[in-house]
């Protein structure tokens, strides 16, 4: 799978809120709290089911003055981390389904 072209969506079961420039996410099933830093929050805001890692990296590069290849590597790493925590999932797979 070309991971850069996969579209990503938020897990619809989650509750979240921005506090102190961070994003706080609660997973209701296990009551675990997740915190995203500035970059993670930027990414979270832009994950809408219509953007791929490449799209998100382009946005990051544009807004944070990061070189495109570094932005893509950072975004892919963050997406992988969020996916492993079941905060997001590829659009074609149901959220929560094992990948």
């Amino acid at each position: 799978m070309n991971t850069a072209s996969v579209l990503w969506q938020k897990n619809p079961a989650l509750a979240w809120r921005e506090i102190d420039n961070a994003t706080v996410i609660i997973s209701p099933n296990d009551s675990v709290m997740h915190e995203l830093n500035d970059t993670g929050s930027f990414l979270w805001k832009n994950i809408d089911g219509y953007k791929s890692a490449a799209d998100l990296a382009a946005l990051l590069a544009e807004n944070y003055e990061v070189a495109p290849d570094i932005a893509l590597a950072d975004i892919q790493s963050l997406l992988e981390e969020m996916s492993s925590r079941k905060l997001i999932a590829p659009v074609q797979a149901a959220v929560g389904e094992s990948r």
Partner: protein
Amino acid sequence: MNAPDANSGGAPKQQLDLSIGCVPFRLQMADAQLFRAASSRYAAFREAAVQPIHITLNEFSKSENRPAEFGYEFEGAALHASSRETRFDGVRNEYALDSLLRVLLSWKLAGRHGFLLHAATVVRGGKAYVFTGRSGAGKSTVASLSPAGTVLTDEISLLRFANGEWRAYGTPFWGEFRAMGSNTSAPVRGLFRLVQAAENRVTPLRTIEMLRALLPNVLFFSAESEANRRLLDILGQAVDSISGYALAFRKDAVFWEVLPE
């Protein structure tokens, strides 16, 4: 109103009206022993209820197939809440009743701008000081070191936003100190995360730090997404408006000297 009620069959039902954090309940039960135990346990919280939440105990209603908006099971006892009724089934003693009542209250508060928190609350100078932390952090010690009559609760505090301010309410849910809980409230002066230490010291918390302190100690039992979103909104508003502190606590009464007035 706590009079016996007519019943369609079996023992007559008795009803117990309670108000906890201004949330009114009417419990109806046929078990006389349970009624006596509940009447004693919740004596300070008995209050004539206006538009109460009706709870029937151990009636195994004919409408069991109705989908529950919220359900919870605890050691054989079960809570079933729908838009038309709330039932507690399999309640054998006051402890099971107490557990289900806490769970139901936590759920109802999410629609009433409030939440339950593992915390001791002490009133000083007309203001509520709320001390939160996990078991062993010192909640009961704080209560035991405070003057008689000032402890709203030593275990579970109820915080609710009403009329433009956050207030802390006593609850009948007690901990090691076995404070019976006081059915009164006071505006919240501050929320203190207890940390055992060699000296007493208070440090302000940023809002995100306060949320980190709150979340593990909030009582909430719904896994439903929308309910959790409501809860997070309420907690977000609480940490925005309530002053939060870390309280390094030596477990002696001198700690009051370092608290803000």
